[in-house]
């Protein structure tokens, strides 16, 4: 066999093998990584009526939302702090920005305390003391026809 032919056939084998690997790896990668594409799809979710929220303090609201969990649809419960000052409504996420423990609202001090490592947040979620690196996360919210709507991923 001439060296040229030998090289040629070797190259063809290499190309075929790359094609075979690509044929399996490509689709499987797409299949497996598909959840990354549904990232950040957001919508407005009704969480409460405005009159349910007392004025001048934060209130824990539990709302449930129909979510698609893979192959089945479930009603999941979530909770969030809603703070109302007159017409002003603010949604504060209960997850501590340190390690994610749930902060608790102290009505008398109008502050949020984290039970895990003593993080303290003020009434608007700003850090007062403790290890948390930044303030509690506030979600976009709007009031429409007396309904409080939360902007979150759906």
């Amino acid at each position, binding site marked *: 066999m001439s060296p040229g032919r030998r090289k040629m056939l070797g190259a063809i084998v290499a190309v075929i093998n790359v094609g075979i690997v690509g044929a399996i790896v490509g689709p499987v990668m797409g299949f497996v*990584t598909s*959840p*990354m594409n*549904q*990232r*950040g799809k957001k919508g407005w979710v009704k969480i409460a009526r405005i009159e349910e929220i007392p004025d001048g303090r934060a209130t824990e609201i539990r709302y449930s939302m129909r*979510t698609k*969990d*893979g*192959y*089945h649809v*479930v009603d*999941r*419960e*979530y*909770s969030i702090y809603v703070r109302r000052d007159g017409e002003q409504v603010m949604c504060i*996420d*209960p*997850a*501590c*920005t*340190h*390690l*994610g*423990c*749930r902060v*608790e609202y102290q009505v008398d001090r109008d502050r949020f305390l984290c*039970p*895990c*490592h003593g993080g303290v947040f003020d009434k608007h979620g700003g*850090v007062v003391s*403790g*290890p*948390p*690196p930044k303030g509690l*996360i*506030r*979600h*976009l919210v709007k009031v429409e026809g007396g309904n409080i709507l939360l*902007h*979150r*991923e759906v």
Partner: protein
Amino acid sequence: MARTPLPIKEHTISPEERADETRVTTHPEEELRLARPSLRDWLDLRLGWYGFVRKNLDEPMPPGVGWWQTLGNLLMTLLAFQFITGFALAMYYSASPETAYDSVKHINTEVPLGNFVRGLHVWGSTLIVMAVVAHTLRVFFWGSYKKPRELTWLVGVFIFQVILAFSFTGYLLPWDQKAYWATVVGTRIAATIPFVGDALLYLVRGGAEVGSLTLTRFYALHVMALPAALIGLMGIHLYLVRRHHIAGPVLPRRGKPVPFYPDQLFKDAVVQLVGVGFLVYLALAFKPALEAVANPTQVEFAPRPEWYFLGLYELLKIMPSGWELVATFVVPTGVTLGMIFLPWLDRSESRHPARRQWVIVTGIGIILMIGLLTLKGILETPPPHHSAPADLKATKTSDSS
């Protein structure tokens, strides 16, 4: 059955055996044996089995090799146990949020020997982590990773990682509170990595939250990808161990190498017996735990990882504000890279600990740190007023204006 001499005498000796000078081919009994092939000879002609077995049993052990060199074999035995019990458990297990917990409960309470088999698997994972750590430390202190065994070490480091991945993915499968919340926290670590963290979180969880797709993902990794990776890596590791032989003590001792069989094999067997005996004892004495079913809305739950991740968890807790990335990414990645490149970082000729002080001192420092943090985590009872992490993911992707 009348044995007719068959003219296959030449073939029954593999070329390997022919080269083996210890073989006495001229012995009359041997001649007779070769002339009348038994089943063993028949098989040997086809498989070359004798040569293989002999070579491994005669593997030369340098003087000074002993009990410390039994850990690898113990680890293999425990992994084999894990493989078999895992296979058995998979026959009763169902990987879906609606059924996972009940199927594990069924194993625990109804399947005959279910508690025992699951106990072997659960305790086995703990013993495996202990054995792999001990094995790695032995190789580290003996400096056995030095030329020409760098790749043996490297493959070993990958095996270590695969074992940790096994444990992390397996932890979720029972779908109880502990499993669920540990995974919520554990996967959230991925989200702290700059730039790609968010995408990574979705990739690992199979969605925004720990749910059915997380469970199937972890299950697929646990029973398909990781075992395949482990078996492949172990094959390479063993091949390399045999190719370069056991390194022996740090300072070569006088004396002739002794064959692996019977002395070292005997020590191996004793250690295996003790290890397996202890495992069986644990499985019988301590029933594998199963807490309440995972409840994403019941947030009053203190998440705690498996004990061998407690060090990392504690590190995360003591990091000052804004330094989380150090605990979630910098330290684990640094330690892993340090392990991977150890043979190239430690370039001293000598394997003696005194001749490679900085490596030993750094190593002991890291081991002490991990040990102390783990101890702290074990001793520390969760605060009475404990809450579970509300899922940070929901917050991460939300507006924070």
